[in-house]
């Protein structure tokens, strides 16, 4: 980029980002007064309707990670609700929008609950089924809906008793669409949007952070029904005639194609995708017979090549120009945040006689351990000895066959993973699990999703409570990042970090939720020396602040230097426990864990060998 272009770009980036969509809306609103013809304004209105549908799908597909094909059915539900109200004499557009949104939400909830019970394609199929059912349902209520002949006799819309003309209805459609996009944008940039991405990345990660996977998926799918309902009401009042044919498979795939084109994980991508689809191919009647072929090709090519859609292309370009213009700054260092850990309210984790078998493989046989606040309890053992299995049992990913697990005296075995997490168990993963497309600061902030509540409604309305929680999130995140030495990386894309950094990020993420016990699963592997030191310092600070730490680790030296208590597992049993000094010289540990046989013991380990010979006596 040339110097002039860079300065132009700097100027563009100095403008607050919300100005651009605002200008776009203003232009669209003014278009009719600039002499745009009837058919063109109609296409813009249809594009707004389609954009609402696509936006709803994005919430489900792009954010909650669930392919749903029922947008067409929710759309029909909204359209028939509005149409029937109008026929019954209720023409107020606000009332119709409200009712249509509620009806669509109910349809979403009703079909989402069973649809989400099974794996990824189950919701896709259940919601797709709705589209197939539509003509039948409309036919069953034929005396009301007009059946296949369609519903006619819809009166023109009104607002507060005054009829709306074509020009003012145009404004209504554009404003309703805009209003929804503001809502959508506020949800997506809030912690709930981040929680959606966590869920999409990995349901395991989401539940380990206290997010209920089922509820969150349902929320994404059901909320996505609302704009479809609104779109239906708008459409019914636009044409004043609706028939089952408007809501078939062609529409369902058209919505999906527009979503893939614009970028599913994007707010404004929905508007762009819908606009291109509506003003491009959908406009021509000659296109109709080729519509399915073209949508099909769109879905294949979009899925294979254009992963992330136009939104991704756009983001990549912005990032590149930002770099060229030297706009990628690092946040200023925050001297008073560095290195301090607030008082932590650690709780005693007690595992008593836990058993677990996978088929005939007895992974854990009567394992007990006790981790106390202000102490680091290390769990070591060879591969396959059951360390990670035990961690997974504590977190609630596996059910115990027998035994008790308590946290601060409260039984947590048998609770679902998200509830265990909400009880105060935070963990890191052997393979760092970090959602794509979010910054380091956002990824860390996700760890606080359940520790302080701020409802989705408060996020939409930007209420004082939402702002306060957001400020608290930012503060804690800054401190946690400073603690692991990553403050300067706060605005980097999290998933692009090297392995060691991603591990430290997970530690920070586990820490911000102020857990009562912190489980670190092989957190030092893949770290360079400097990072290991920083990690060790962090763990010591957490201990000093009163946190309970359970450390699963292969790095024996690190364990010896950090742990207050070491528990050694082998073949699913605890073979030794005690202070590092005791474990370091325990002959069974040396044999099992380090693979050292007593007769091979060198001078350094002679002491251990003598213990063995004493025992043998």
């Amino acid at each position, binding site marked *: 980029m040339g110097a002039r272009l860079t300065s132009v770009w700097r100027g563009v980036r100095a403008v607050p980002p919300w100005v651009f969509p605002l200008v776009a809306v203003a232009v669209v609103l003014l278009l009719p007064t600039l002499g745009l013809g009837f058919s063109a304004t109609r296409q813009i209105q249809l594009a707004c309707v389609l954009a609402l549908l696509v936006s709803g799908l994005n919430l489900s597909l792009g954010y909650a*990670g669930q*392919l749903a*094909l029922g947008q067409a059915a929710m759309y029909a539900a909204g359209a028939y609700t509005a149409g029937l109200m109008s026929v019954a004499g209720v023409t107020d557009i606000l009332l119709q929008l409200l009712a249509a949104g509620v009806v669509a939400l109910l349809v979403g909830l009703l079909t989402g*609950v*069973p*649809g989400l*019970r*099974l*794996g*990824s*394609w*189950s919701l*896709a*199929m*259940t919601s*797709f*089924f709705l589209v*197939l*059912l539509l003509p*039948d*349902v409309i*036919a*069953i209520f034929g005396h009301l809906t007009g059946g296949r002949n369609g519903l006619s006799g819809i009166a023109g819309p009104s607002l507060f008793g005054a009829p709306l003309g074509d020009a003012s209805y145009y404004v209504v459609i554009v404003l309703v669409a805009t209003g929804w996009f503001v809502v959508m944008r506020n949800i997506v940039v809030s912690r709930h949007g981040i929680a959606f991405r966590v869920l999409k990345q990995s349901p*395991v990660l989401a539940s*380990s952070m206290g997010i209920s996977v089922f509820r969150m998926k349902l929320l994404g799918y059901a909320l996505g029904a609302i704009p479809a309902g609104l779109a239906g009401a708008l459409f019914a009042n636009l044409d004043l005639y609706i028939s089952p044919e408007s809501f078939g*498979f062609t529409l369902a*795939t058209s919505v*999906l194609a527009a979503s*893939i084109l614009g970028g599913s994980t994007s707010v404004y991508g929905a508007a762009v995708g819908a606009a291109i689809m509506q003003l491009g191919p959908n406009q021509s009647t000659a296109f109709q*017979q*080729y*519509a*399915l*072929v*073209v*949508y*099909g*090709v*769109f*879905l*294949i090519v*979009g*899925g*294979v090549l254009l*992963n992330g859609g136009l939104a991704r292309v756009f983001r990549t370009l912005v990032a590149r120009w930002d770099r060229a213009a030297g706009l990628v700054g690092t946040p200023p260092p925050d001297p008073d945040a560095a290195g301090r850990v607030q008082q932590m309210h650690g709780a005693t984790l007690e595992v008593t006689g836990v058993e677990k078998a*996978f088929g005939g493989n007895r992974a854990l046989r009567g394992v007990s351990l006790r981790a106390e606040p202000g102490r680091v309890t290390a769990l070591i053992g060879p591969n396959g000895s059951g360390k*990670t299995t035990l*961690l*997974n049992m504590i*977190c609630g*990913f*596996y*059910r115990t066959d027998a035994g008790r697990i308590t946290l601060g005296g409260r039984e947590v075995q048998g609770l679902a993973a998200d509830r265990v997490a909400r009880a105060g168990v935070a963990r890191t*993963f*052997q393979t760092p699990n970090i959602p794509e497309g979010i910054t380091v600061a956002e990824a860390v902030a996700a760890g606080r999703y359940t520790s302080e509540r701020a409802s989705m409604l408060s996020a939409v309305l930007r209420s004082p409570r939402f702002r306060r929680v957001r400020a608290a999130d930012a503060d804690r995140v800054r401190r946690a990042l400073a603690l692991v030495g990553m403050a300067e990386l706060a605005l980097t894309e999290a998933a692009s970090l090297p392995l060691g950094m991603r591990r430290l990020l997970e530690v920070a993420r586990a820490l911000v939720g102020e857990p009562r016990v912190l489980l670190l699963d092989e957190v030092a592997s893949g770290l360079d020396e400097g990072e290991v030191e920083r990690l060790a310092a962090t763990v010591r600070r957490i201990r000093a602040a009163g946190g309970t730490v359970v450390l699963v680790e292969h790095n024996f030296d690190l364990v010896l230097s950090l742990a207050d208590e070491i528990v050694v597992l082998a073949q699913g049993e605890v073979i030794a426990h005690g202070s590092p000094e005791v474990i370091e010289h325990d002959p069974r540990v040396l044999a099992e864990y380090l693979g050292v046989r007593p007769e091979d013991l060198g001078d350094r380990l002679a002491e251990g060998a003598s213990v063995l010979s004493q025992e043998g006596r």
Partner: protein
Amino acid sequence: MTLLWSGLALGAVYALVAIGYNIVFLSSHTFNFAQAQLVMVGTFVAYTGLVVLRLPVLVVALAATVIVMVLAGLEERFAVRPVPDHQTQLVTTLGVATLLNGATQLVWGGQPLTVPFFGGNDVVDLFGGRVYPAEIALLVLAVALVVGLSVLAKRSMLGLALMGMSEDREAAALRGVDVRKLAFWAFAASGALAGLLGLFVGPKTYAVATLGAALALKGFVALAIGGFGSLPGALIGGLTVGLVESLAARYLGAEYSNLAVFAVLLLVLMTRPSGLFGRVTERVV
């Protein structure tokens, strides 16, 4: 009884689609949205071969098998293999399904076409009900396939490799199974099956461009009832769906048949989400 036969035969069609889903699902854990559309293309090829070109049955059967197998192979190569995650594969295979829907509509039009059954159209009396030869053939075919494939899966080297791959793709690869090749051929085989089925399904359902969506959904319900990956489950699930659909259409009215199937789906998902024969696996971090 006539009604039962008709319902069971329809159920056999759904079971056959569900078996196709299962073959691909077992080999690569991919859900091929377009499986039913492949069967639909098979019915159209059967129509063109038997009615328009008046070719011998064997030639038509071979042509349908090969054409649809090639289509399935192309789908695997261009819409499934390059796509890393199953979620996006849903989108791309749905794309293939849409493409096939649109293409058949362009080539064969929107009207239902009658596909004659090569075994004759004379109604047979069986157990006090009247049944078409094509319906008997469908039932026999579905049962034979389930039995045959189950034996194949347990006894043959190929079947064992497939099962191993289904269990753990990486481990199978390390044991010398060419997982890529096997996944491709499983896809192609499900296509070949779908093509051949066209000759049997067409006489029962007509060749029509809306067949794909209905078959896809009912085949899915069959799978949900029986449990994903289970062949006997697919058969029982399919027959259940067929019976429910026929009985509902007869006693409640045609517009209730899909609703009844949907109600069954919801019921199964709410009470036994892993299906009758499905396995529940514990999650692993």
